[in-house]
């Protein structure tokens, strides 16, 4: 099986029912995407698949052959943080930060489609991401300002 992640082609040999999340974390050692629920309900594992923020825990790795996968590790360019990563830093939009990579991925997808979302549009787009530390207002600010 061949997949393309963050611009690099990888060949994998994994059990048939392996999730994209496990493949990323275990086989590619890209551990920025987190396990939170295993059912696509918390958003901690989100990655961009052809630009769509998608929970990787319920995405079979076999389904992303011939697609472009970008993870949190792929957002940084030449040591420069992505503007959304920088905005999260500037706004202190985290506590334990376990949700941050999934949040940032969802926000990147939103801002790519809609560079100036309203507060309500942010809330709707981010509804699938849980920040259990609940610093949601900070995250909304970060996304607005990025």
């Amino acid at each position, binding site marked *: 099986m061949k997949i393309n992640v963050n611009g690099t082609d990888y060949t994998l040999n994994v059990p048939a029912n392996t999730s994209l999340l*496990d493949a990323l974390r275990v086989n590619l050692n890209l551990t920025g995407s987190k396990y*939170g629920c295993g*059912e696509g309900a918390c958003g901690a594992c989100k990655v961009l698949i052809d630009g769509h923020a998608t929970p990787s825990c319920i995405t079979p790795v076999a389904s992303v052959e011939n697609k472009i996968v970008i993870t949190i590790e792929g*957002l940084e360019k030449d040591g420069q943080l992505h503007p959304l990563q920088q905005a999260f830093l500037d706004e202190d939009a985290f506590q334990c930060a376990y949700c*941050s990579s999934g949040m940032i991925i969802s926000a990147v997808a939103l801002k790519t489609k809609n560079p100036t979302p309203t507060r309500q549009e942010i809330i*709707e787009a981010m509804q699938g991401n849980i920040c259990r530390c*609940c610093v949601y207002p900070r995250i909304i600010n970060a996304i607005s300002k990025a």
Partner: protein
Amino acid sequence: MKNSVEGINRRNFLKLLGGGIAVALTYSDLNALSKHTAFVPPGDDAIAAWVHILENGTVTVYTGKVEVGQNIRTSLSQVVAEELSVPVSSIEMIMGDTLLTPYDRGTYGSLTTPTMGPKLRKAAASLREVLTDMAAKQWNVAQQTVAVKNGQVIHAVSGKTVSFGVLTRGKKMLLAVNDQVQLTPAEKWSVAGTPVAKVNAKSFVSGKHQYVSDMVMPGMVYGKMLRAPSYGASLVAADVEKAKISPGVNVVKEDNFIGVTAPDPQTATNALARIEARWKTTPQPSRAEIFTYLKTHAQDKERKAGEAVDKAFGAAPVQVQQHFEVQYIAHVPLEPRAALAVWENGKLTVWTGTQRPFGVQEELAEVFSIPKDHIRVMMPDTGSAYGGKHSGEAAVEAARLSRAVGKPVKVVWTREEEFKWAYFRPAGLIEVAAAASNEGLLASWEFHNYNSGGAGIEIPYEVPHKHIQYHPSDTPLKQGSYRGLAATANVFSIESVMDDLARQLKQDPFRFRLNNLKEERLKQVLQAAASKFDWTRQKEAGRGYGMACGFVKNAYVGTCAEVAYNKSNGQLQLLRLVVAFECGAIVNPMHLENQVMGCVLQGLGGALFEAVDFKDGRILNPSLSSYRVPRFGDIPELDIVLVDRKDMPSAGAGEAPIVGVAPAIRNAIADVTGVKLNTLPLLPHGMTLKTPSLSSNK
């Protein structure tokens, strides 16, 4: 002191220290500041924390406290940086490592800021004193003419400077804290008291920070455990043969423990699913009967109110009797329990996400019958806890599997395991009988709490006759710590009854509270909240206002809520929360705001819709699709007022803000609808008043 693991003592400290100068503080130092009654220091000369300037001038701080998102890595760095006048970035905090850091009972109970903070300040200030003394002697000038700045000692008169590194070179000194050392008062703070960014923040937003669940080791395998179908079930027989068919799978069977290891997590999960087990179940209480159960299973059923309270209640013209039901809720730390364990020559090393690395070390020592100094537990900054990670289950499981298969083993609990096999915030039944005079002064107060706990049970208002009793009970679900713990249930009940009394008296609930309150700090936050909320402004039609106040461990909160009610369809909407909070001198206003914000919004879940559902020993909603936690769409407009009391010692902030949320919303709903909701969660079926109550549903 028995050994270096239990507490590093002065004698063996120098071996660990290497070069440089360190100031250490002992448990007796620390204990003097701790109000925790159960606190037993490991030994008078045992070292509790220290600050160390290495020969290269870098400052390292060693503490057994751990970082779970509350940002003490940052705030403790700030207080040390303040006293030593060095940049926060030059400080390295070594935390929660049983080999390197001194014994610590755990990071809980809002103890870090009020106890560890001041002691590290004292240690750092003592170090500053030593450095200035050394420089003064070297230059042959008066000590008062030298000061520290930016990692250097400076002579004010001549302008001579010497770096900390040069001063400490070739030294090997361990000094005690000078208890009389001059601390920088909060009014003069320039690093503490400011919004310093989270230490290592960049590693988190770039996905590089290694939580325990991210860690790998060469040769490591993944572990999964066979779980019982319900609480109280015992294993009758298990056929594990089919689990072994995949290459690389090992099955470990030790008494009732059955686990598998495999080279990748999916293979481990697949193997586990092939185990065929038979279980014997036992009858278990269900949620439908929980409150009757807690009352009938109370250890202390006798209610000792006494004649004076009964008499005062009977004689008072305004009486309220209410009972409140509070459901079990789950912490749901987004990173579930995780551990990586490896054995080498009979010694065990474990990385695990826990609030009590030393507690986990003790747990492992007991399970494996090995001395504690054969066990090293480390806790990298973890994916949150909220009081839910006191125990070491994953560590024990990973260590057991690792010992059996002879390889490093990583165990990461699934969300379902976290829901079913960790522990919950206790459920509770609270019964209150309260009375007031016609003038609106409290006359009597009788308060019984079954099972929730004693935290926050004391009424903050003045009342001449009171009886307050906590009745521990036999809990059918495993229960434990949670931020605020029982204070949420107790303050919910207290503040609901206060509102109901005010309503019967036809008095403004704000005025009624102030009239019965002497505690100045509580008054101050209540007034601050009411003022920001604009409590006296005219209500729009269909709007209700509610308020509440409370305190936990020297931190005070006042909360106001505004709800909208559509009478035609029963729809409620939480429009706004205003929270005024005071915990003494603020160490980091930005992170304090996050603590308050997070605590309040997390509290929305327990206030409105979170409840663990269970029947016959099974958790019925062990997933994030069936157990709802607050999301973006749930948050109201939120105003946070931070009251900075530079004249007061800094206290913890992770608990108190939660206690006002539920009663303020409940009182606002009562204000606009007249309906008194006396259960937590208030609205388990959604924001409408027309649905059946939670407890009658299942």
